[in-house]
């Protein structure tokens, strides 16, 4: 065991969070920014040191601290990229709240720092119960963030968020207890290789499904998300959309698929069916929203459905695509919420109808907003294209109907995003105050430009992101291979007709 970099990634924000509670607002902001930037540097170091093609689990730590379960950390490529995503978004969240949050700043910063260490913990945990503790603990800071610094209807939203997700997860805990007793281990890599009896797998799968489907969120248990997003402060929405939703997808990849391959194949129709409904239904709902945050929240549900479609395609394209959608959506939806936050800070309304013609008085803003809109639509060259394309290819291999329905989601996605952009940025300003809004300042540029660069990087050279995950996806596919369902498309790998054995004539010709 070398330098415990993962423990440090978790401990640093925690210490900073405690420190924030005892200082004034100004110092708390700087402490939070410094801590998140150091964590970002550590995350970058983690990525740099990660050995692509090396052992499956790297940076492992194991201390039998708690008797029944252990402080066991370690990451594979999937966890690595999600950790990098988390630490990348965190300083942005702090900077986005720099002026927007005026009351109770030390507590606010402490809540976000606590959130960061819990998020890293979720992705780094290698012990079943350690994972559960991190997974559940995130509810407390998020409950406080929504409830204290949220909008008018924040209390209802915070309750709904908390109780919905709690109910989902407690059933998972019982399943985890059963698994730990059955397999005699709480070590996640061990459990990923353990063959649970097929009859039990269905129940276990459903218990985990209850938790991850709520977290993801999948239709029809997504209703907490629009409420939570609309009421949360901007940075809260960023973290919610950027990272917390990814915990659901991560759970499917880490637990459901490799641990219950039989049940995953049997219940594929459930995941696919719900995703198909989600893509179409929530896209249509997004089309009629008057509130910008609500629109983006519904679009999140639709995008997360691409993740489940890809994951349950049981092939490399699908799973890699799903992971890319997770990363891409983490960046793009975070950026879109930040874009909403920028104009919300100026006019204090999220009502689409109050804005208009922003491309005239806010050209830089309009440009960046356009980029993120296009990325959300899935334009080639942006991050979401890679992921959505791959997961649709994966889905097509397994079922052309799923791919057909899901693709309509892309069209609808273009419709609601472009319609939103047109109403906000084009035309003429409907109100004088909207027309008088100043363009992005340096702080806001510093927040949005890094995300824009990352979005383009993912779109232009996705190999940087696919490479670390390749072997891990391979490992999952190997687990799934015996039970993977047959495809209805009967796609065969293209190969040229094999020519007959070369005749002497031809051989002679070749020599000429």
């Amino acid at each position, binding site marked *: 065991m070398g330098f415990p970099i993962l423990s440090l990634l978790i401990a640093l924000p925690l210490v900073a969070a405690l420190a924030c509670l005892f200082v004034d607002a100004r110092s708390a902001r700087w402490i939070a920014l410094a801590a998140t930037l150091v964590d970002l540097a550590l995350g970058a170091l983690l990525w740099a040191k990660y050995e692509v093609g090396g052992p499956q689990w790297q940076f492992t730590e194991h201390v039998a*601290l*708690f*008797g*029944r379960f252990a402080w066991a950390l370690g990451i594979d490529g999937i966890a690595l990229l999600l950790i990098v995503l988390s630490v990348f978004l965190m300083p942005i969240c702090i900077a986005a709240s720099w002026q927007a949050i005026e009351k*109770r700043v030390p*507590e606010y910063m402490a809540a976000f720092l606590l959130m960061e260490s819990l998020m890293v913990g979720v992705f780094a945990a290698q012990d079943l*119960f350690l994972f*559960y*503790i*991190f997974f*559940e*603990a995130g*509810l*407390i800071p998020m*409950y*406080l963030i929504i*409830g*204290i610094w949220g909008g008018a209807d*924040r*209390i209802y939203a*915070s*309750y709904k968020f*908390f*109780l919905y997700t*709690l*109910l989902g997860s*407690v*059933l998972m*805990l*019982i399943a985890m*207890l*059963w698994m*730990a*007793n059955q397999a005699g281990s709480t070590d996640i890599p061990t459990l990923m290789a353990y063959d649970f009896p097929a009859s039990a797998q269905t129940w276990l799968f459903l*218990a985990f499904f209850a938790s991850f489907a709520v977290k993801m969120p999948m239709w029809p248990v997504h209703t907490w998300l629009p409420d939570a997003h609309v009421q949360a402060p901007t940075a809260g929405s960023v973290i919610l959309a950027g990272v917390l939703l990814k915990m659901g997808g991560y759970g499917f990849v880490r637990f459901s698929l490799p641990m219950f391959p039989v049940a995953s194949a049997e219940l594929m129709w459930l995941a696919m069916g719900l995703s198909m409904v989600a893509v179409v239904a929530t896209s249509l709902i997004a089309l009629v929203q008057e509130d910008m945050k609500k629109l983006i929240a519904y679009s999140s549900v639709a995008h997360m459905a691409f993740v489940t479609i890809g994951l349950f395609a049981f092939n490399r394209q699908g799973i890699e695509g799903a992971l890319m959608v997770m990363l891409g959506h983490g960046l793009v939806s975070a950026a879109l919420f930040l874009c909403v936050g920028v104009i919300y800070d100026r006019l204090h309304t999220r009502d689409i109808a109050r804005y208009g013609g922003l491309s005239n008085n806010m050209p830089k803003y309009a440009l960046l907003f356009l980029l993120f809109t296009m990325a959300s639509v899935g334009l080639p060259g942006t991050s979401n294209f890679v992921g959505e394309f791959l997961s649709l290819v994966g889905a097509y291999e397994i079922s052309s109907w799923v791919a057909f329905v899901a693709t309509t989601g892309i069209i609808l996605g273009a419709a609601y995003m472009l319609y939103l952009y047109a109403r906000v940025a084009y035309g003429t300003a409907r109100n004088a105050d909207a027309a008088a809004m100043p363009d992005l300042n340096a702080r806001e540029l510093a927040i949005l430009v890094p995300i824009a660069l990352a979005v383009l990087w993912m779109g232009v050279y996705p190999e940087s992101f696919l490479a670390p995950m390749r072997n891990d996806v391979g490992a999952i596919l190997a687990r799934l291979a015996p039970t993977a369902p047959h495809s209805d498309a009967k796609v065969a790998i293209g190969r040229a007709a094999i020519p007959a054995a070369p005749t002497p004539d031809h051989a002679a010709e070749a020599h000429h």
Partner: protein
Amino acid sequence: MPITASLALTLPELILSIGAMALLMVAAFGGDGLSRAIGWGAVALFAAAGVSLLGPAGSGGPGFEGLYMADSFGAFAKLLIYIAAAVSVLIAPGFFERAGGYRAEYPILILLSAVGMGMMVSAGDLLTLYVGLELQSLSAYVLASFLRRDTRSAEAGLKYFVLGALASGILLYGISLLYGFTGTTLFAGISDALAGGISTGQMFGMVFILAGLAFKISAVPFHMWTPDVYEGAPTPVTAFFASAPKVAGMALLLRVAIDAMGSGVDAWRQVIIFSALASTILGGVAAIGQSNFKRLLAYSSINNVGFALFGLAAGTPDGVAATMTYMAVYIAMTLGSFICALQMRDADGQPVETIASLSGLSRSRPGLAAALAIFMFSLAGIPPLFGFWPKFLVFDALVRAGFWPLAMVGIATSVIGAFYYLKIVKTMYFDEPTEGYAPSSSVIEGGLITVAALAVSPLGYLAIPLLDATSMAAAHSLF
């Protein structure tokens, strides 16, 4: 076994009862001016009794021909009881002085009650059990009406007495039935008699005994007295009721169920399962409408007792260890909450009990609000707070014993409970501040709140190996 050896096993009870009588003399001749000194004397006695558990009193085995069991199970429970009782003594002076005078009988009654509780958890015979229970209860009735000029306190005492006497009657009836149908009151003998199948009379006896004990731990459907008594009794007394007698009652229930009726586990399990589920559901649902903080904590204790009972429902050493761990963590959470409730008083020093008065506490008293939030999230069983761990253990025990559908239902009921714990946090953190409470200068209360909050914070997880080892040792001494 010679009588002296048996007496050595009861050293904690000897220390406490002789000490209590000595302090009673001091109080009789020294007057109420010495109340605080007597309180410290009582705390010292609890410490001495706790230390004495290290000797034969903690591991000596049966004494007095099996009437009394000095095993590690009893020692574990007694340690919890002494800690809870000592804390109840420590927090009392401030409260009673504001209410019009601290009387020296308070620590002495708690000492006597602790003697009774020690007898309960070490009982090896139905009559030892009954004598211990009555000693504990009689002290408790007086404590409930300790503020005798306060009508609510008097009402609480009367209610507790009448219903407690009824429960004692039920218990005694069960004891007589079981004695009649098995021919013995010794736990070991009853266990042998039940091993060959259970007759209807024995079944009745068991159910009556369980009903009487369920009253003591306020498990549904024998919980009705709890909210009224908790609300009416002086707050330090309520803190005591919610902690030490709960541990004693639960330990006694475990001992009777496993030691005496262990061979009839399939007969009583359904009773325990019903009571556990009913307690978690009713404790959760009925608490939602409460506006009085102490009443809410009463329902919270009903709710938590339900979860602790799940461990007994498993009927395995794992389950018993889980229940004991549950009680250990529970007393830290519940005592912490009640000490926070002691801090709730207006500018004149009068106690305030409404939940609404907690509004905006996070701004007027951030430390207190943070501590109370920790207790609330912990009582709700949300990780990473330590209140999650005992819930984890009881459900683990259920799953190991094969009762996973019950575990599913049980854990789902914890979500109902989470709602009202969240309500407290919401009131403290989300609502606008009201007039706020008078500042507190009590070092003892502040220190105890800090200790309790740290114990149920994530730091508590470091104590898991120790808790696991001791609670498993305790549980195995029953099987």
